[in-house]
């Protein structure tokens, strides 16, 4: 049986790991390679690493960091940040990364999705949608450049379009929920989920394993990603890299699917 995936998401800024709140207030939480080693020991399902200043600073991906991450990871790795061209995507896959995430570039150059899928295969092309509620009517809107630019695009329509172009996975990153730890935005997930037949991963809002279980209960086989949940402990947000135990994870998934 294919299982839902529970995925830590790490943010890289100036070579170190940070955790943000609503895409701002980055707090330093440690060294990327050290965190990967801890997550290896904890046998995490997958790992997402996003370099959050690359696109905003108009910088290319940091290949030496990516090479080191890929060699260290004993779980599948999805890398994102600063990816704009098919050549960059090929280079990253060649370094041993299973999945490459594109965000701003997919919005401004959708053909990148189809060109990249043709070269490296759809399974390795992930589109991250940074989504924010906007306007008086509270509509969901895609943002680019690490949340700083409005696009006027709706997430369900855009997800459907990038599926047509050959993407292999969609990651919803809910800006309003980032670092808030009060639960996933299930309405947003439902809108996107119904629009596509691709695997879907959700990021933004998980504050406890109950939130993860709730997402799985609502949507079945899905990727539940989280940042704060796996790097902080307690109300004072003390830095502690952590994950569920295998037994706890199996029990959580079994109970959530049972109730689905």
């Amino acid at each position, binding site marked *: *049986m*294919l*299982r*839902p*995936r529970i995925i830590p998401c790490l943010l890289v800024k100036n070579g170190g790991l940070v955790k943000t709140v609503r895409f701002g207030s980055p707090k330093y939480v440690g060294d990327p390679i050290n965190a990967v080693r801890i997550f*290896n020991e904890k*046998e995490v*399902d*997958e790992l997402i690493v996003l370099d959050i200043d690359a696109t905003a600073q108009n910088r290319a991906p940091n290949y030496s960091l990516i*090479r080191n991450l*890929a*060699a*260290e*990871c*004993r*779980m*599948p*790795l999805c890398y994102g940040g600063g990816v704009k061209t098919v050549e960059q995507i*090929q280079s990253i*896959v*060649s370094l*041993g*990364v*299973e*999945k490459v995430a594109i965000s701003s570039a997919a919005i401004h150059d959708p053909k990148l999705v189809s060109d990249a*899928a*043709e*070269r*490296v*295969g*759809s*399974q*390795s092309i992930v589109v991250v949608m940074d989504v924010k509620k906007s306007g008086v009517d509270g509509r969901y809107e895609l943002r680019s450049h690490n949340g700083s630019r409005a696009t006027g695009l709706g997430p369900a329509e855009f997800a459907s379009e990038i599926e047509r172009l050959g993407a*292999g*996975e969609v990651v919803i990153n809910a800006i309003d929920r980032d670092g808030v730890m009060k639960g996933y935005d299930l309405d947003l997930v439902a809108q996107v989920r119904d629009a596509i*037949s*691709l*695997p*879907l991963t959700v990021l933004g809002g998980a504050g406890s394993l109950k939130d993860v279980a709730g997402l799985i209960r609502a949507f079945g*086989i899905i*990727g539940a990603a989280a940042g704060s949940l796996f790097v902080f402990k307690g109300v004072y947000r003390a830095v502690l890299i952590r994950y569920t135990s295998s037994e706890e994870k199996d029990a959580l998934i079994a109970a959530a699917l049972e109730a689905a």
Partner: protein
Amino acid sequence: MIAIVNYGLGNIHAIANIYKRLNIPARIASSAEDLTQAQKIVLPGVGAFDWAMTRLDQSGMRECLDDLVLCKGRPVLGICVGMQMMAKRSDEGRLEGLGWIDADVRRFDEDSFAHKTRLPHMGWNDVVPRKDGGLFRGLESGARFYFLHSYYFAPSQEGDVLAITDYNGSYASCVRSGNIFGVQFHPEKSHQWGIQLLNNFAEL
């Protein structure tokens, strides 16, 4: 010594790191010369079929691999698209495969799925071996591996199927034809189960 074929695709270093931790001699082979000492071969892969075939052709190692695998009978383990390249052809590409196993690579047929099933097949799934021991020693029950693919390996000989996986229907997630082994999943990214499988391959 196990040679990990470096034709510019797949997680060469993750495989090399696992063998290093297991204290099993392995080296990354980037040329035909590097391959000559190989007692066993790992052919990794991530990517589209034609791109992988093109990179392997350009690596200058293809003839040497054919010789080692088909004439000298050295055990080889293909991973993901490294497995798929061992077939004759693929729905994903136009180029011919290596043809080491009488098989086609087919796209999962979404219309045949009984209920809505998402593609690619992505995540952790069960692998059920049909025979005990060998590559699946210690993995006879409860083993799970990481999958990431929309195309699957379809051998023409049912006897070549070494393990199956269910994704809205069963398919061959591991095949064996003599000295030639292929796994659709990624053992190098499958924690304890993957380490066990790579260790088993080394001990065959």
